[in-house]
């Protein structure tokens, strides 16, 4: 490894301090940590492994089932995509599933962003008794997986006669501890306290401050939280599987129905998988940069 990464050019045999000074004038930060050509090869290989399974699902989705036994396996798309897509919609209630998933994910996203911004504003910028303790409670609950409370949650939904309805899917996800934490971290540094005080002097109510001062500033963080929430809600599987039936599914539930019913029909199941992933890939292609930024920011504070 040491022979392949001559990070300091060999010709600079002058005293170290001199090299440092000379180089820093050109590139102030991180000047020596330039990438080795091997680095790019490694990254390209990684990119290949990241993208290949998705690409392969599209290939299989565009194939006739009988073409899958070929040796070597097919590496380029075939011509049966439209037919396979039609078969997915004929086999399971996929249209309904798509609509259900859009409804569920949108409602959850709206609710999480709204309630997280409200609570985040209160924790970050308002004074009230019990604030530190309550904030610790929020952080502590972030770690607890909701999956473990499924039995009583199911009993509650059964009692309210919400089984097999979208309400049952949506209700437990209406608020998120991570969302509250994320928004309050962002708002505590992004909203100048003087601005709030000035608003107060001008006779603004607290709700007025939230609406006219905080929300406009919170917009970028709210967008990131919204996208993360939408992706999570779209991909959620365990709880929707518990409360929904194959006749009224979300995309993931319907996908698992396709997979369990037609074990050998790979072109059908992989068409379903590709279809279910497509909306998120589109969102990700458009807004990936912000999502990545949001995750890295959240990580630093976490």
């Amino acid at each position, binding site marked *: 490894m040491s022979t392949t990464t001559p990070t300091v050019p060999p010709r600079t045999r002058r005293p170290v301090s001199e090299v440092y000074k000379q180089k820093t004038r050109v590139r102030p930060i991180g000047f020596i940590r330039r*990438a080795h050509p091997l680095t790019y090869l490694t990254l390209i290989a990684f990119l290949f492994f990241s993208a290949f399974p998705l690409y392969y699902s599209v290939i299989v989705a565009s194939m006739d089932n009988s073409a899958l036994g070929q040796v070597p396996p097919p590496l380029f798309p075939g011509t049966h995509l439209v037919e396979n897509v039609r078969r997915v919609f004929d086999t399971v209630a996929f249209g309904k599933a798509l609509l259900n998933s859009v409804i569920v994910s949108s409602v959850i996203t709206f609710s999480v962003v709204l309630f997280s911004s409200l609570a985040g504003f209160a924790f970050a910028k308002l004074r009230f008794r019990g604030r530190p303790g309550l904030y610790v409670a929020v952080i502590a609950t972030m770690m607890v997986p909701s999956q473990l409370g499924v039995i009583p949650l199911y009993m509650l939904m059964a009692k309210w006669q919400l089984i097999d309805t979208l309400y049952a899917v949506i209700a437990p996800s209406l608020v998120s501890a991570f969302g509250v934490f994320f928004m309050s971290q962002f708002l505590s540094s992004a909203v100048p306290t003087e601005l709030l005080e000035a608003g107060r002097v001008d006779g603004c109510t607290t709700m007025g401050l939230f609406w006219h001062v905080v929300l406009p500033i919170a917009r970028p963080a709210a967008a990131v939280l919204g996208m993360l929430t939408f992706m999570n809600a779209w991909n959620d599987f365990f709880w929707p599987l518990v409360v929904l039936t194959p006749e009224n599914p979300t995309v993931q539930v319907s996908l698992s129905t396709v997979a369990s019913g037609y074990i050998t029909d790979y072109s059908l199941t992989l068409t379903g998988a590709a279809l279910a992933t497509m909306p998120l890939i589109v969102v990700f292609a458009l807004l990936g940069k912000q999502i990545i930024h949001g995750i890295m920011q959240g990580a630093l504070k976490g």
Partner: protein
Amino acid sequence: MKSWLHRADVKASPYLYISPFFLLFGLLGAFPLVYTAWVSLHDWSLLEDQHTFIGLQNYRDLFADSAFWNALGNTASIWVISTVPQLVFALLLAHILNNRLRGQTLWRTGLLLPNVTSVVAVAIIFGQLFGRDYGMINWVLGLFGFGHVDWQAGTATSHIAISVMIIWRWTGYNALIYLAAMQAVPDSLHEAAILDGATSMQRLRRITIPSIRPTIIFTVIVSTIGGLQVFAEPLVFGGGGLTGGSDGQFQTLALYLYQAGFGRFDFGYASATAWLMFLIIVLAAMLNFLLIRRIRRA
């Protein structure tokens, strides 16, 4: 009058704003979790109205059930096989990306792409790739002279296949988290080390890893919690179903819980399973907390 309204607004608003979170979380998050413990002490079936208090009998049954130990073992094994390579790869990737590079956005998008894919889709796609007869992976192994592996049939092979799915989906995400932490490490440390002749690997071991240790522990705890919940992959893998293969060779705790709760509708027994899983998570979280505190003190 006006000042009274103003005072009421200032005093009450904060509670009003945090109340949706606490009310909804209390009702649909905290209460079910606590109530799980109560249900676990009963002979509680969805199909009967009578719920008899039986103390710790469900736990005794659980500990006496070899299928429970099998599921616990499978979960632990899949957790180790998936977490260790995942975090090592993530560290190396983040270390590489923490250089001056062209196309940072492209690489980072590549990191997160698998994470956007749903678990069910991942399980379906990899189920095909790991197929016995027409799977791409067996074909590649065949090129190197290996025979066809029946990935689903064996304990070790099925655990590897499931772990690969988890590794594929989460490595990039963890790399992003590490990268964020690495960027907070002062450049001057690296520069001084380079001038002293340190190689890239030495810097990773001596500077980067010690500096981001709390983040590493954080990712370990998060993947522990995630590892206890592995569900969709074994459920979908080759259409295996709730039993996790013909001999339960890849049945995880989450599948076991689902089978008891929504296969047999034995709510008491399922609750005991859930509560045990919760205790394991609390233990892991406490261990994590202690470790971080020790590092901060040192």
